């Protein structure tokens, strides 16, 4: 499981950066999505012990049982997903607005303010 996820994370990062390097606004968004998903999976993979059936909560007095699953990475990933979703929704609206104002989806057409 760990190996599979590691490869998936690598592919997500690679594809994310590749898409972000392109000039099209839509592909840029896709790149951002891939990158944030890659980061979420990374936290999930390195943070928790990836096993099925272990309880995340143990009764008081049992101490830190060895076969306990760590629930914290899930909580982190959940937070990161929510934040990523909100930011992504905003970015989509913004980029749509950019497209309407500038009249192009090519990033090279957006350097007028830098001259």
């Amino acid at each position, binding site marked *: 499981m760990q190996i599979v996820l590691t490869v998936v994370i690598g592919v997500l990062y690679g594809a994310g950066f590749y898409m972000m390097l392109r000039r099209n606004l839509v592909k840029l968004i896709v790149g951002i999505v891939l990158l944030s998903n890659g980061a979420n999976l990374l936290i999930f993979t390195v943070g928790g012990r990836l096993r099925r059936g272990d309880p995340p909560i143990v009764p008081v007095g049992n101490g830190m049982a060895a076969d306990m699953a760590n629930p914290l990475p899930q909580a*982190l990933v959940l937070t990161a997903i929510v934040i990523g979703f*909100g930011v992504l929704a905003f970015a989509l609206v913004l980029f749509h607005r950019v497209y309407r*104002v500038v009249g192009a989806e090519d990033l090279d057409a957006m350097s007028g*303010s830098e001259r």
Partner: protein
Amino acid sequence: MILIWPILVPLLTAAACLVLWRRLRLQRAVSTAGSAVLLAASVRIFLEVEASEIVALQVGDWPAPYGITLVADLFSAIMLVLGALIGVATVVYALATIDPGREAGGFHPVLHFLLMGVSGAFVTGDIFNLFVWFEVMLTASFVLLALGGERGQMEGAVKYVTLNLMSSGFFLTGIGALYGMTGTLNMADLAVRTAAADSPATTVVAMLFLVAFGIKAAVFPLFFWLPASYHTPPFAVSALFAGLLTKVGVYAMIRTFTLIFVTDIEHTHGTILVIAGATMLVGVLGAVAANEFRRILSFHIVSQIGFMVMGLGLYTPLALAGSIFYLIHHIVVKANLFLISGITYRIHGTGDLKAMGGISRSHPALALLFLIPAMSLAGLPPLSGFFGKLTLAAAGLEAGRYSIVAISLAAGLLTLVSMTKIWAEAFWKESPAPPSAERTPRLMLWPVAALAACTLVIGLLAEPLVAISLRAADGLMDPRRYIEAVLGGER
């Protein structure tokens, strides 16, 4: 409990502004009052921390390192006060300058959400929580940057949003890796565990954080989004961004690289020092080449970030004190210069230096107000910038790093060159077009005058302020008390 106020006050202010959505005059009153209360609360925290060391709060009474900790040491408290000060100045300035369209579009609530994110980042003691505050701050800044929807703003926003989201990706990756290595997110606990593990992998993670915070702080070679976007939004927004946002990145960098990533100083801080030198030089060269008022100032931000990071790279108490003093000086001066550029824009209807001129004759008082922060930025004594540069240079010589000192002095000279360019073009030469006869609104001048007065005070009271910076730097260099306050103390 006092530590919750810098987060709660902007939150309540923003909420009240949202409730009063259609009642703009009430919104303005609430917004102004809210920023003033935030400043008062921040000063109160500063006084408490200054008198009695570090204040920590375990939110929800969950003991550290399991719960989220809010903690303020002297460095945090200084940053809180500065953030709130710039908040007040820009809110007052915005009262006179923000157009009704933007105001009706939610300018005031978003501004307070931004202040909440900034304050939250300064007081949090949890690295994931820091990420959350960064996102709060970023989302609010995205809205402020794009609000109004002019073409220039849109072009700037694309670059700003993309690069900052990328930085968040790096930050999250770094947090994931750090958590995988140590199993904790509490910064004090992280400090204990990375020191105990002393593993080379820490340095790898440190580099991830360096990239993440480097983008946010706009260091070389990750600064390109800044001069591409900071000159596009309204002047009040520019000033707020210029004063605060990159400095939150610098704060996070200094915090993590004095607390957590100190296992391989040779490598990490050596890298930072090289970055600092390149940032200073490239930034100021950009400023020399630019010809638009706010673009010159934006490039200066980049260059000045180099000075702050230089102190971190040297990693001695005196150098860090220099960085902290430089932050104090820079935030005030930089926000002020952006506010002034708004006034000159009003006079000439443009930010292009070629089309401006003669302001020193038509508005002599304004010219004086410009000269104070401008010469302070260039580092002329007895203004505040001089003491910042002096402290850093002294620390560099003490550490035997002569080349970085030489670079910083050259960058200072070039800063003076580009500042005199603004002076010669906009203020001194004959005006190509008659200036606007309209009077500048008082509300625009008050914040500028107040910040200029702050600059003078920082310059004149350099001695006690450097002493406070030294104390803050000592706290950073020896984080035992910080760790004790978070992990050991009960409150």
